[in-house]
Structures are given as C-alpha cells and as structure tokens.
C-alpha cells in the first residue's frame, strides 16, 4: 500500500508474515548544495540518534529501547547521486511472541515521534554539551577511516576523480568542514530537514495498513515540495588518464581505477550495466576475479562496482607493490576483452543465474524490502522481482559490449605500501 499523505510525504506499508519483527523507516531526503551540507547532516544524524527532550542521554535512549524488548533504532545517512537521505530506522518484535499485552508498533511510532520531532533543543540551539560531544565523536569516526587502508584508497580514488566539491568528499563529510559547524548551523539544518525535505515512511511486517495509517497520522508532518531535480550526477570524460600515487607504511598496496560510465537511468542501460559489472569484476566468475586473482595470484582481491547515480565504474585491487604495472595491464586487458566481445555466453548465463539468485534471496532480508521501497520512491519507479529477473535474462552480448565500450578510464589511484 502506498499513499501520499501530503505533497512530498509518502507512506508505504508492506504487510508480510515472513518476519518476527516490524520495521519502520522515516527518511528525509534533500538535494546536496555543497560539501558542508554533508558534514552538517552527518552531525545531525549523530545528535538525533542519541538524544531527545524525553530521553536526553544515550543511557536514557538505550533504556527505552530495552524496555521495548530490545527494539533496534538508528540513524543512517546515504548519498544517492545528488541527493542525501537521513533516515531513522526502528524495529520491534511482534507482540505475539512475547505473550504479554504490549503494543510495540505503537510504542515504536511514539518513540520515533519523540526522537525526530522533539530534539534536545533550547532557544534555537541543541544542548551545548551534547553538541560538543557528538562533534568529537564524528571527528573520531572520520579519523578511523584513515586506519582502514582499503577505505582510505577508495575515498582517495573518489576525492581525486570528482570535480564537484560535494561529490569529492565522503557522504559523512570532512574534518575540515566539521570544525566550523556551529550549533546554530546544526539547528538550521534540522529545521530544513523536517520542514523542507521529501519524506518517505516505510513500514514492513505483520501489520494492518489501516492501523499504521492511523499511527503515522500522529506525526507532525506537513506538505513540502517534492524533489524535482535530477538525482543523477554526471562528469564528462576527460581525454587523458590521471595517475595519483600516495606512499604509505602498508604491507599491501591498494591499486584502484576509476572509469566514467554514462548510463541512462530510464533505459535498459541499468540492467545491462548490472550484468556487465558482474562479468567484469562483481562475481567470483568475473574476469577480474578469475584472471587477476585466481589464475595469476596477483591480488588477494580484485573487484569492480558501479554507481548508476554518479555515472562511474571503479575497480579495487589489493596487491604486492612489485606487481603494480602487471596488474594495471591485466585490469586493462579484462575490460578490453569485454569491449571486444571476448567472453562466452555460457559464463554470462551463469552470472545471470547468480544475480537472479541474489535478488530473490534478498527478499529474505526485511531491511531490503524497506530500502527497495525507498529507492523506488526516490527514483519514481520500482521493479517487481519478477520483472527485474526477466530484464536481466533479456540482456544480450551486444548489450554488454555496448556498456563496456562506454567505460573510459579516468584515474589510476595507488596507495603504495612498503615504505
């Protein structure tokens, strides 16, 4: 069941008896104007996860969740192309397993109402001590990324590839912009979120849509403008390939590649890209896995991913420094093979089976239902599993070659170890 409660506020209820829990997502989505926005929203996510008027400390929040039989609650942030979502997710077990007369779904909605709409705010600013503490926590988190060489190499790749300042930086922002965020900035970001962002509410579980509608109606939301900008970010390809090498004290070198891969969201491109990516480096039967890892033992990992909302394809490898040039050659050779149609449909058929198996399997994860509904709503269209599987099955050799030929290497980024 999907219903527009107000302009810009949509409720989706997916009744299912498959799970022991009910999950509620309340998601706020806006268009990213600049890099600061990402940092401020991340800090906001930290603040709103850990405090509210009624439960001002983490301990108080945790006690309330324990009381609700170990209810889960958290905030997440997601960049999708040019948009940014701050989501509140709560989950409770179904009352029938508790043999008590609880109404945990109602409690969960009331809990969310408090956490989202009654922040720990006084006179236009958040509680100063909590603000300072969460700012410090976010700073610590940002530092921790630098301890993970694989993540460091991925963020390094992106920061050198993207020209747009808001795309360059990770979705959680940067330490430099975090330093300058004031309490008042944060409160402004909060007001914008609740009054102007597009809102999507998704509920999955063994629930009655009518009852859910009644509960959601108690949330203090009003009409706002729906997101109208294009979600997709594109950065036209450059003629030459940039090379960036950063030396680190590491055992294992990370060698990453970024390609421009323009995809039309509304065409078959999307499905062709899924199959192409799996064949290139997204599946154990892929070219990268088979030829860079397995056959030549050149890498512990060699994989590819793509982002249809930012028109990019990227490859990550973990290698011995000495094999750097050899691996570059091997990776280029795998893409060239795909561009020339040098692959068998037998492998493609297996990969399609893998993709289909994965898609159907994900229906066994409750969170997937919620996320798919949310993304479907943001993109304005959703595929049923049956339709998705059919469109994957329909992808031809030509479709794959077409996508492969559009991939153009833009950047080789190396986090070089052994120093």
């Amino acid at each position, binding site marked *: 069941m999907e219903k527009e409660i107000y302009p810009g506020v949509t409720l989706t209820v997916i009744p299912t008896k498959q799970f022991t829990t009910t999950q509620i997502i309340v998601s706020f989505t806006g268009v990213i104007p600049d890099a600061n926005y990402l940092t401020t929203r991340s800090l906001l996510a930290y603040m709103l996860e850990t405090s509210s008027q009624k439960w001002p400390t983490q301990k108080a929040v945790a006690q309330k969740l324990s009381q609700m039989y170990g209810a889960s609650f958290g905030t997440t942030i997601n960049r999708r192309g040019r948009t940014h979502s701050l989501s509140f997710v709560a989950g409770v077990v179904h009352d029938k*397993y508790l043999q008590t007369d609880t109404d945990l779904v109602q409690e969960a909605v009331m809990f969310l109402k408090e956490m989202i709409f009654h922040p720990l705010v006084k006179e236009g600013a958040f509680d100063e001590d909590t603000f300072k503490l969460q700012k410090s926590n976010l700073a610590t*988190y940002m530092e921790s990324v630098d301890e993970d060489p694989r993540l460091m190499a991925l963020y390094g790749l992106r920061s050198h590839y993207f020209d747009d300042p808001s795309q360059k930086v990770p979705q959680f922002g940067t330490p430099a912009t975090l330093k300058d965020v004031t309490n008042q900035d944060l409160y402004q970001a909060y007001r914008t979120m609740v009054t102007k962002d597009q809102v999507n509410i998704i509920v999955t579980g063994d629930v009655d849509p009518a009852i859910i509608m009644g509960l959601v109606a108690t949330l203090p939301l009003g009409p706002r403008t729906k997101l109208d900008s294009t979600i997709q970010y594109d950065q036209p390809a450059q003629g030459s390939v940039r090379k960036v090498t950063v030396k680190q004290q590491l055992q294992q070198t990370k060698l990453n590649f970024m390609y421009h891969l323009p995809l039309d969201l509304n065409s078959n491109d999307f499905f062709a890209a899924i199959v192409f990516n799996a064949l290139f480096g997204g599946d154990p039967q892929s070219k990268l896995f088979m030829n860079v890892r397995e056959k030549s033992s050149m890498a512990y990992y060699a994989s590819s991913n793509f982002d249809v909302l930012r028109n990019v394809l990227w490859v990550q490898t973990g290698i011995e420094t000495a094999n750097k040039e050899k691996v570059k050659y091997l990776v280029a050779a795998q893409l060239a093979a795909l561009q020339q149609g040098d692959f068998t449909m037998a492998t493609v058929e297996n990969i399609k089976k893998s993709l289909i198996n994965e898609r159907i399997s994900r229906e066994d994860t409750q969170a997937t239902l919620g996320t798919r509904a949310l993304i479907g709503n943001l993109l304005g269209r959703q595929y049923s599993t049956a339709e998705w599987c059919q469109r994957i099955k329909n992808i031809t050799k030509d479709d794959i070659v077409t996508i492969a030929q559009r991939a153009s290497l833009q950047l080789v980024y190396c986090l070089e170890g052994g120093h």
Partner: protein
Amino acid sequence: MQETLYPLFAEKMQTERLANGLLVNMIARPNFHKTYAILTVDFGSIDDTFTTEQGEKITVPAGIAHFLEHKLFEKKDHDAFDLFGKYGADANAFTSYTRTSYLFATTSHLDECMNVLLDFVQTPYFTEQTVAKEKGIIEQEIKMYDDDPSWQLYQKTMANLYPGSQLSLDIAGSASSIAQITAQDLYTCYRYFYQPSNMNLFVIGNFVPDELLAVIKQNQAQKTFPEKVVPQRFFTPLAQPVVPQTVVPLAVKVPKVMLGIRGTEALPMNREGLKKKVALELLLHLLFAETSPTYQELYDQGIVDDSFDYELQVERGFYFILVDGNTRQPEAFVAAIKEILQTAPTTVAKLTEELALAKKEFLGQTIKSINSLEAIANRYEGPLFGYATIFDLVPLVQEVTLADVLAATKIIDFDNLTINQVVPQ
C-alpha cells in the same frame, strides 16, 4: 527423522544421524525464498596436535585447518565454486579456532547444490602444485590483516591470554608456518577429522525435508568412507600464565585498549552450559552496556566513545571475555574497567530491575535473530551446547536469575586478566 517442535514460532526441526555418522538437521520455511545449508567439521586451528592410528602423537604446521578449507574447493579438473556458479548459488567457507564450515545459499537447483557440497567436501584432492599456489593467496590474506590495528590488538590479546597454546596464533597461521605445509599434511588432517561422524549438516529454508534427506542419503550411499577413528586431541590453553600487559605502537591516531579475561572453570557441554553462557552475557550487559550504571559517566568524560565494545566467546575447550575501545585516555579507561570488574559482585547484587530490563532486551534480540536463516544455522554448535538452537534460547533467557548472573562473576579473576594497548607511533 526425530522432530523438535517450537510451537511459539510454529517451527519444527527434523534430525537424523545417518548410518555413516553424519548428523543432519533440517528446518523447512515455506514462506522464505532461499535455502541455506552449512556443513561443519569439528576441526579448527587449535587441533594441530593429535594421535594417529598408530598411536603416534604428531603436530602439524599452524594454519592447516584454514589452508585445507581453501584447498578443498580445488579439484583436478574443476573448482567447486564453478559448480555452484553453474546454478547461480552463493558458496563460501570459514575456519574458526574449533570448526571449519562449508556453506551455500540458493533459490533453485537445491538437490544439485547439495550434491556439489557433499562431493567437494568428501573428495579431497591435494598436490604439491596446488598447495604452492595457495600459499601465495593466503600470504596476501595474512598481510591484509596485518595492516589492521584492531586485528593486531586482538591477536596480541589472544597471545597474552593463552601464551604457548594454539590460541596464541592466527587462525590462518603465519607465512613461515604455512610455508611448511605439504599435501601429505593435508591428507593426514583430512583422514582424521573429515569423517562423517565428525560433521554436521544444517539446512534451513524453502525446501521439503523428506525429499532432500533422500537426496543426501543417496549421495552418501554411493561413497565408502574409511574406518571411523577418533584421534586424541591435545589442547592445553591454560598451561601458561596470562601475560598481564603489552603496549604496541602502530599507525593509529587514537589509542586502542583491549582487556581480556580467560575463563578457567570448564563450562558443561549441554543446556546447562548454554544457560551459563547466557548468564555471562547478561553479566557483561549489566556491567558494560549503555544502560549500565557507569557507562554514561565514562562516555561524558570522554573515557569511552562509540567504539566501546565487549564480548564473550565460548568454544570447545575455552571461553573468554573482551572489553575494548578507542580512547584518548587509556589510563583512565583501564582504571575504570578494572574498577567495574572488581566491584562486580557487589554491584550486580543490587541490579534486580536492570536484570529484568536486560532480559527483555535479550529476549527481543533473540526473537529478532530468528528472522535470519544464516543466524539459526551458523550459531548451531552441535554437542557444545547440547544440540540447542536459537529457539531454545527463548525460554532459557527467561529462566536466568540474579543468582545465576552473580555466579557468573566468578570469571572475574585478575590473575587471568590481560590489558593491551595499541598506541600512536
């Protein structure tokens, strides 16, 4: 097949031990889409010293269980991953201190996948060439983890908790230990541990148990297995005293601290043992969770942050607790944790309301985990907890009393405590 009913969840587990000793457990869930199967061998990184049929006591190089796990997928003319790939199934494997598991998940061709699983695990093929090739890949895997300061801290803590025992070594071994592994070593370990009577198969999802059992029986009937032998295993984790502390400089921005305490009183291998495990987990929750008496204070003073964590690990022959986190005040962190541990018996005695709340939380978390096929199958530990499943935890959690949790405080013994730090260079 024997049936175990879980009426509250309208679920049923069907069990049969085959003629060759393989234990099979099945739970059918028609409203799910995939089926998940996991075949577990009671053989892990600690099992490197054992007696042969001739009564000879041998020790194999460290990391061999993990090495074997990698190698088993590769056969003379094919790789098992390719066979699963033909059906679009998802396959994987993992090795722990005490077990090796091979698993797959699929939404179609279940019978074929089941045959692939049983065949590749039960048909060993090792040559010096294939062994040599794997060394390169595993060396890279070890190196990748070497770059991870959290992993280093954990390894150091295990080495200090169980010095001189197999637990002090990385499950994957080291570059030098795996360099010594030969194909013959692999065949030897395979012979003694990869026997059907030393394995269990857990299947859960959208399938028909009787039909699948018939497929499994037919597969097993076509094979001959060597005579059953039960090697004596040598594992003395407590032989040497705990190393009380170490400080290691690494590439971190903020210090990381990890305290470990090893259990010394053996846990019974049955439901009673599982109940004691739950009591220990509740104890840790009462002492260290966000709702605990001291957590908020430590958090506000910046002594702990969001990375603060704690865990209990219970496996065949050992158990330990860990408390760790990033902190800019490592001395205060250590002092605070030690204080909480030292005063635990007196503190816990007063926490009746908090225990009731904690039990509600544990109950809800357990019910939530029942959503996951993987959780139910992976957390089945066979004889370790008297063949219990997650479903059995539901009534157990409700039975635990304050007295049980107080009894659990016995694990807190500073003679068996280690304190380790990773600090900026």
